[in-house]
């Protein structure tokens, strides 16, 4: 597997080529606590090259000191990868599914369809303010997956009004009739919210969605 190292501020991101191909790339985004390696087991029919990214604090990417994670930073990780790949279709699993939605809205002109799959970190945190927990120390600091990533990205807030904004940006900016495909069985509130939006395919499988996006 070929690996490209990309700079995202003070982080080195590992972008792995899962397999070569001809045509538009497919970018795979892993779940919380996983790595690109977990995405290589995904059985997908896709003619173009298939790439998988290690998010900050995961896999072979840098584990920073002291946490400070947000889903928006991981969205920027995906954007760094897209700058390398160009136009791509994105498949995200768990937390990666949420990031796939964000980047599909934020970079609607280069994300040619985003498929959302079940996986760790799919639910995220509450859709509203919550009580706080105190976390002062962790073991395994400095190792991937970064424990601060597991802590901070497992309870990030995902209010419906926020996530639907990204679904609408994807629809308005992509020129694709249905730029988001919800292929996950679990439907936390944020998934329910976007599933009710125009431009979001539901009751669809991964390969079926990829076949649609491959035609775009």
């Amino acid at each position, binding site marked *: 597997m070929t690996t490209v190292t990309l*700079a*995202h*501020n*003070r*982080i080195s991101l590992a972008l792995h080529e899962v397999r070569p191909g001809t045509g538009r790339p497919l970018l795979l985004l892993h779940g919380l606590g996983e790595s690109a390696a977990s995405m290589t087991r995904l059985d997908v029919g896709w003619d173009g090259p298939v790439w998988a990214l290690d998010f*900050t604090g995961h896999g072979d990417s*840098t584990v*920073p*000191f*002291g*946490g*400070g*994670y*947000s*889903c*928006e*930073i991981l*969205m*920027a990780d995906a*954007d*760094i990868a897209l*700058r390398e790949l160009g136009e791509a279709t994105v498949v995200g699993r768990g937390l990666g599914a949420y990031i796939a939605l964000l980047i599909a*809205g*934020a*970079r609607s002109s280069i994300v040619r369809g985003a498929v959302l799959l079940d996986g760790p970190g799919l639910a995220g945190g509450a859709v*509203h*303010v919550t*009580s*706080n*927990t*105190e*976390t*002062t120390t962790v073991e395994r600091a400095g190792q991937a997956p970064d424990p*601060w990533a597991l*802590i*901070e990205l497992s309870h*990030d*807030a*995902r*209010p419906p009004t*926020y996530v639907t*904004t990204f679904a*609408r*940006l994807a629809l*308005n*900016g992509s020129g694709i009739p249905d730029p988001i495909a919800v292929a996950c069985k679990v439907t936390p509130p944020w998934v329910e919210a976007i599933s009710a939006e125009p431009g979001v395919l539901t009751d669809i499988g991964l390969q079926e969605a990829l076949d649609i996006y491959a035609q775009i």
Partner: protein
Amino acid sequence: MLFCVHGGSDFAGTFDVFAPLLAAAGWRVVAWDHRGHGDSDHAALYGWDADIRDALSVMSRVTSAPAPVVAHSKGGALMMQLADGSPYRISRLVNIDGMPSKRRMPDVPDHDQSRLLADSIASWLDFRHVAGDSNRKPGTLAELAQRRGKMNPRLSTEWLEYLVTIGARQDEDGWRWKLDPTMRFGGFGPWRPEWASLRMAALTVPFLGLLGTSDEPMGWGARARDVRPFLPAGGRLELLDGVGHFIHIEEPDLVAGMVLEFLS
């Protein structure tokens, strides 16, 4: 002893006139530069929870007993969250203009807000591509003070120039603010200002809120009518007419007196 907590883009040195007034009354005053600010290390990542953990780390190094906290702006909102999650840590809380309220951009239609949001996200993402190479613009001491003056129009030139000597470093080509140049707030995100208000209402520590009535670029634009419904039980809100966001800098003696009376 008590802790002073600075706001976003600031540093502990902004308490250099105010804190000695508390110290003169017998308090040991401890303040720290948040990550990426002042003399603290620049980090790879920045986040609200990380700032709170950093605060807990500092507090735990200094004392294991609950202590009073005087916090300004973003520091005030951070400390309300810390007081909510770790009430044993804070004995009394003074929040200086760090009480956000639910106010939207006025007179901007929804479709324009969506466009502004899309532009804001794209701009932030573009910046992430070059953030690692970014550096703060150098200038003379007076030029840095002038730049800061645009954000702090109510503060004196003498004070702003003093801040440069603390919050900036002198390189060969001029002065640069120490604030991590990779820090840039995107203007978007899932957080809603009213969440801080809900946390404020739940606080059990004695609470004093101070609010200036004059808007400033770095202020949060909260109004007394926005804040009062969310005051915690027994909490007080004091308004300072004709004062801006940096209440403790504009009126150090007055604010120190109010704080000392509250702490007594």
